[in-house]
């Protein structure tokens, strides 16, 4: 083999290696995205498209969509989850026999989450009637609605998750026009109510303690003491939602903004 050929060969190998790396990265990226983004009962997405600009869509499976619409559908999904949970709470035996104060708090949370859910449904339907997330089916059979610990413990997780989800979604909204600015403000109007809920539920679980804004949920920034709520990306939130097993209807989140 002469020198020229050697160099040629070396280049070819390098090129192939680069291609491989790039393809592995693409696949990794896809697996990561799809693994976290597919919500529902064990649905698997097969990847047959390496082109990042064209997002594979599952026939018959709803995708939350792109841009601000996607974020609104994402919020709508979370509100559906919360509203359905409290619907079950109010139909359950723990709530029926709970002390009046707890009963009132849980009923308030039910009302608020139903209002949030219906608000998103109305709002998204008004602007994108063909792209609104359908009514999701849920399975809360793993929650014992006769148990205080199960009801309040699940409520705590859902409310804390809601807070971190809205905090993370704020920056994903394109607020460069009036509508986007409205969505950002609306997210702000709702997230503080979710935080009020989380605080109340946490205090019911451990009254008079620091748990209403506890170190188990707050984080530090830049090495500070914990004093900030989390701000989580939709992929992280949806992954946590998958883990609950509560969502039966599969949907994907393949086009949500990531920055």
């Amino acid at each position, binding site marked *: 083999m002469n020198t020229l050929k050697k160099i040629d060969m070396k280049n070819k190998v390098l090129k192939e290696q680069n291609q491989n790396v790039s393809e592995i990265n693409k696949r990794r990226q896809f697996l990561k995205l799809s693994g976290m983004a597919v919500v529902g009962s064990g649905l698997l997405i097969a990847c047959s498209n390496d082109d990042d600009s064209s997002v594979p869509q599952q026939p018959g499976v709803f995708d939350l969509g792109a841009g601000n619409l996607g974020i609104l559908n994402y919020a709508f999904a979370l509100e559906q989850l919360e509203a359905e949970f409290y619907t079950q709470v109010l139909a359950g035996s723990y709530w029926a026999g709970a002390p009046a104060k707890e009963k009132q708090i849980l009923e308030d949370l039910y009302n608020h989450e139903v209002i949030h859910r219906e608000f998103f449904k109305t709002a998204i339907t008004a602007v994108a009637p063909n792209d609104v997330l359908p009514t999701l089916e849920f399975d809360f059979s793993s929650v014992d609605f006769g148990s205080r610990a199960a009801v309040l413990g699940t409520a705590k997780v859902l409310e804390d998750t809601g807070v971190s989800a809205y905090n993370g979604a704020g920056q994903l909204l394109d607020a460069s*026009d009036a*509508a986007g600015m409205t969505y950002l*403000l609306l997210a*702000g109007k709702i997230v503080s109510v979710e935080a009020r809920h989380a605080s109340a539920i946490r205090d019911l679980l451990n009254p008079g303690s620091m748990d209403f804004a506890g170190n188990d949920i707050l984080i530090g920034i830049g090495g500070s003491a*914990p004093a900030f709520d989390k701000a989580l990306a939709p992929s992280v939130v949806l992954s946590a939602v998958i883990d609950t097993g509560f969502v039966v209807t599969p949907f994907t989140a393949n086009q949500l903004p990531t920055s």
Partner: protein
Amino acid sequence: MNFIKLLDALSNKDLLSKEGSRRDSFDQFKSFGAKAVMASIPFSLAATSSKAKAATNSMASATYMGANNDVLNFALTLEYLERNFYQIGMDTDGLIPQADRAVFQTILNHEATHVDFFKGALGNAAIDEPTFDFSGGDLNLPTFTSYPTFLALSQGFEDTGVRAFKGQAGALANDNTLLTFALQVHSVEARHASQVRRMRGEKGWITQAENTLPSDFAAVYAGEANTVQGGVNLAGMFGQFGGADAVTEAFDEPLTMAEVNAIASIFIVS
């Protein structure tokens, strides 16, 4: 810049003057935008004309640093106020009952961390800590001798803080990092507010504009009875779900900088 100067500067920004500089024009635009949003822009995903969008973007970048620093100093001022308030409260023997000290120590820790955070973010641009008078001057409030008064003010400060941060989200929309930090503080203030409200026998959330604070602090809850969200009046839509009361509870409302400063300045000497 001291706080009073900052206050003046910020208050002037809300005045619609036709002879303003370009910077003033942008601030008016922003302030107008915020008002328009609250007065219910119809829900729409459609962008405004690309020309208007480009103009907005260029104006936003022109005032980028100044505007964000103003917002950060505004936030810092509120955090200074809260930290100072809770520090004195915790240091005053016999004020806070033993059973409630864990809560207020927690809140104090958070506010102190928030102060450090905003000071760090501002660097040399950070304003000095104002001098506070928690008796409210002529109001002569027994803030640190009466626990109910201390609790009432705590609730007022926390609920104001929630509304103040919410009101600035739009102003920070040009900086994802700052916006997210502000949101991360905002929801912690809401956790505090809920806790203190419940300790006072109120709900953790705000029904209409109802409150049990002295009437001098009505401004803290002004506008909370709003039922129009994203251009839709939700008031009559939820009869089976708590009605208009629940609608107002389900959405917290923002305050403008000027509205917040009017409340905060009751307790600021210089």
